[in-house]
């Protein structure tokens, strides 16, 4: 896990990282191919139900507190210029566009991504994956594919929930704690939510879910070294999934909003 294990200097380290990156892309393509050509609807449904039942509570709590935190912070900054309900505009605009989808994906990575990696890792070190292969079945089609579909279908649902709960949390805290008039807070929140941003958030969710599942299942499938290896694989999986989520979000933000705004700016 620790990069210090490489004693051959920085060049070897960079080489190792590049190889890992290339192999991850290879794994992603193979896994996506397996998921698309040989979908397993029954397993996908079960995994989707499990993903939603385990991740949604986390998403709800995280989004509620994110909405609350954004509202308090925005109100604190805006109180200097007496702009109470403007806090709602900021949360509605920034929350739905960026914060809630990102946090929903991060929560799924933390809850279900870690579970994907630790399940597959435990199966790998106890030779269950080998057993599947010996039986002439493909772990890629049987285990990885359904997880990819489950995440790609589950994350958008989580994003919608995060949007709803985050806005309700913002309204609740804005009204009861910060003391903004309920009507004008709700008006500011709803006025700043654009339908397109909701669709874009869900689309983002599909892509992020797909990528999270690829990253975390890869870590699980390449686990080695007993119980220690499973722990390390889970750790690597969540960290890499979060990094991929953030970098992909930036790429999407730039592609969707950046070029138009920079032209204006």
């Amino acid at each position, binding site marked *: 896990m620790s990069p210090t294990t490489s004693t051959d200097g920085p060049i070897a380290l960079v080489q190792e990282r590049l190889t890992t990156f290339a192999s991850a892309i290879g794994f992603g393509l193979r896994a996506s191919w397996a998921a698309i050509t040989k979908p397993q609807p029954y397993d996908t449904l079960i995994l989707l139900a499990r993903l939603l039942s385990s991740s949604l509570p*986390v998403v709800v709590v995280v989004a509620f507190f994110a909405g*609350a935190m954004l509202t*308090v912070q925005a109100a604190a900054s805006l109180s200097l210029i007496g702009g109470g309900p403007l806090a709602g505009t900021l949360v509605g605009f920034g929350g739905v*566009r*960026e914060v809630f989808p990102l946090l929903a994906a991060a929560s799924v990575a933390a809850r279900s991504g870690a579970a994907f990696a630790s399940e597959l890792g435990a199966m790998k070190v*106890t030779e269950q994956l080998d057993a599947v292969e010996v039986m002439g079945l493909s772990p890629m089609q049987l285990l990885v594919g359904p997880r990819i579909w489950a995440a790609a279908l589950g994350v958008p649902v989580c994003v919608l929930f995060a949007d709803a709960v985050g806005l309700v949390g913002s309204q609740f805290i804005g009204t009861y704690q910060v003391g903004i008039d309920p009507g004008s807070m709700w008006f500011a929140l709803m006025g700043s939510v654009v339908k397109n941003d909701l669709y874009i958030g869900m689309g983002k969710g599909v892509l992020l879910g797909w990528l999270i599942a690829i990253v975390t299942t890869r870590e699980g499938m390449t686990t080695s070294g007993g119980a220690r290896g*499973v722990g390390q694989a*889970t750790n690597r999986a969540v960290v890499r999934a979060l990094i991929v989520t953030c970098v992909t979000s930036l790429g999407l933000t730039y592609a969707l909003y950046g070029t138009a705004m920079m032209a204006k700016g």
Partner: protein
Amino acid sequence: MEQLLAAVGRPFLGFVRAFGQVASFTVSSTWATVTTSAGRRTTATIALQLLYRCLIPVALVAAPISAMVAIQSIGLTAAFSAERLLPPLLAATIVRELSPGFSSVMVCFQAGAGIAAELGTMRVTEELDAIDVMGLDSRALVAGPRIVAAALIGPLLNLWGMFCGAWSTYLVAVWGMDMPQQTFIDSFIEGITPLDLWVSQAKCFVFGGIIGAVSATFGYFTEGGTAGVGRAANRAVVTTVIAVLMANYVINTFLYNLTIQGVL
């Protein structure tokens, strides 16, 4: 009715029990660590290890998210023809909320899961029992140092997160929208006060401590072999992320109240 009460009561009791376990374990192991020289030495080593492991992940999270905020804010400030307000706005966002929040979430993912997985592995392979059998204190030597180290690296990683965030917004503003370099730097610093920096650092110290405490406790009391290690790491990440967000909200509320009372 009885069943309903039981259904509500069970998770609540579970939460209270877990909270008590984390609190008592944290106090006893932290005390055992800071009062022994072996514990303090181990803490320094582990802090360096955790810092090294978190540097790149924190940069890879803080920089893209700051750039995203910058790109979105360009539109917002351009709508009011107030582009000059962009750098101070970004500085305040990064220093007050973005860097402490997302650096700490990354520490949850990297250090939190790592601590739980390491301690969990040591538990299921009976290494912790071996340490205790030798008459040494596994809390002082293994668990406590990780808790203290996590609290210590929180503020350091926050500084690093702010640095990376500032750089990425600089790239967006100066390269992306051709803002003059000097204007950006001068007005960027206007957005923050020394107090903002100190509050942000204090927050990260608290978040780091929470992350260390929760994940060390979950790892230390792992049960159920190899699969249990994975579950402990998973639980640690989820719980620490939620705990950090809740703590952030509580601290923000406290600061907000101080602000409207005119103390700050």
